[in-house]
């Protein structure tokens, strides 16, 4: 059976990896579009920051259930409901952590000097080549930051997971829920062990990211 800590790490890794794939195109669009209603899209992306996790979880639960559009589709496809499953947690976490990936991505991409992009185009590069050879490498520290933030944010997620996943040991019982459970059952030593592990992982991650970015900035100057 997967331990809660391991399950949390798994969920965080899958979520932040998928956010890299989903978030980068969104961030690219936000960073470079001249569309007038851009702010509307930005607001939608930022919504999970201000929304209470239980509210988000409630709506997702309705949607993921067998009567929801996505839930019904998923059930027909896989045979089990999206709610109360690991996949459901991944879906929920992607939405919940979206701003923590997209916002750093967007600001990193937008801060790439436009003159470099112009130079690349006038040297004959297609927009794909410009993105992968110029924009992406220069924005890389911000992209790593977005990855790490969404990872850490998913790691500590509580409300959405509780609403969506229930509390099924080995399947949807993540570390933060397990800690809450253990405290409820007055098992303080286990809660303490799990807490210090989460604290350690989160802190180590931030130290690693900052060190990486520092080294890189030093090299470019």
């Amino acid at each position, binding site marked *: 059976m997967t331990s809660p800590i391991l399950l949390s790490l798994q969920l965080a890794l899958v979520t932040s990896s998928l956010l890299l794939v989903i978030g980068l195109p969104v961030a690219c669009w936000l960073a470079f579009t001249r569309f007038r209603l851009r702010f509307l899209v930005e607001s939608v992306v930022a919504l999970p920051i201000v929304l209470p996790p239980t509210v988000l979880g409630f709506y997702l639960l309705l949607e993921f259930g067998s009567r929801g559009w996505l839930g019904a589709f998923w059930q027909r496809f896989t045979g089990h409901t999206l709610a109360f499953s690991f996949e459901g947690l991944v879906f929920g976490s992607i939405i919940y952590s979206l701003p923590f990936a997209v916002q750093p991505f967007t600001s990193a991409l937008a801060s790439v000097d436009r003159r470099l992009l112009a130079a690349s*185009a006038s*040297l*004959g590069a297609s927009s794909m080549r410009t993105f992968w050879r110029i924009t992406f490498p220069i924005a890389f520290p911000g992209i790593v930051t977005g990855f790490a933030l969404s990872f850490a944010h998913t790691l500590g997620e509580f409300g959405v997971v509780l609403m969506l996943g229930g509390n099924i040991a080995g399947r949807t019982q993540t570390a933060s829920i397990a800690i809450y459970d253990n405290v409820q059952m007055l098992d303080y030593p286990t809660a303490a062990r799990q807490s210090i592990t989460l604290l350690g992982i989160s802190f180590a991650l931030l130290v690693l990211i900052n060190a990486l970015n520092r080294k890189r900035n030093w090299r*470019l100057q």
Partner: protein
Amino acid sequence: MNASSAPLHVEIHIPLQQFPLACTFEAQREVVVLFGASGAGKTSVLDSIAGFRTPIRGRITIGDRVVFCSENGINLPVRHRRVGYLSQQPALFPHLSVRQNVEYGLLDLPQAERDERVGAILERFRIAALASRRPAKISGGEQQRVALARTLVCEPELLLLDEPLSALDLGLKSLLLESLFDWQRERAVPMLYVTHDQSEAYSLSRRVLVLEKGHVVADGEPHRIFSAPFSRERAELSGYENIFDAAVEETHSALGTMTCRVMESNLMLEAPLANKTAGDAACLALRAGDILVATVCPTGISARNLLPGRIRVIEDRAGMVELRVQCGGTRGDAKGGVAQNKTQRTEFCVHVTRGALQNLALRAGQDVWLVIKTHSIQFLRS
């Protein structure tokens, strides 16, 4: 269909915020200087040719390719125009080495050919020793050399240069220009060089296009263009520090001069004869470096303008000293004390060397004489 056979044909209309830009010109396989004040639309012209900006109307051809034509809906993207564009900022890719920067435009070529061309251009621009360094680790002049090599190695069919060397010091600049012009002569591609520096325009080319408020107002050899009466806007731009509104008092056709009175003052200046009659308005321009300063009234001198004045302020500038000298008007210490209404002092800006300042022991408040040759005074187009 293509009536013109010139390697570059430009005909564009862009509604800029301040004025509508509408200009038409052609260029042979030559260097053409695009001269004008900042905000005259020079960069918009270059951006349209390079493809960064879309004119609302017009047609641009490079060689036998139509790169833009509003009538036929042709608008080639930047990457297909084969136009080299170099601006004041080298815009080197900071995460790539010098070699990788130069190589960037050749990524579609086979490795062997790429290496050969990159190697040759690195040698030519004397940056082979820097090949493995990052842009942040080389000097500004070297960065601009790399940017130039990166552009030229792609063999563009047209070169656009937007004050590419204005951030460099004089020595570096002439060295780079030499390499650039050698290359241009060799490849015989048209080259548009934007500048707002008149002396640069003189030295660079035998053809200057003057752009003013989005229109080409003059096209020809630099000495012809710059000696013709020009606008006040351009006089300010070309470093005429003293510009006065004046009125013609008297013409002396036998002497080849005219006496002009500076507006709102009693100051008279002898200016070269122009096609004007007494009472006409005239705008006069005078360079600060063309005025001499004397501590006593000079005698036996050919200059026709000897003006008494007083130094108001002395400012140390890079390489020289700027004096502000007030002339004419009614002096506080003038005897008689008949204060004339509507006569103001006229302030001249004068440049002298630091040596002259020390030698003459000039200080603020001192009375001096300004000496001005008739032909130092330029008439401006009104």
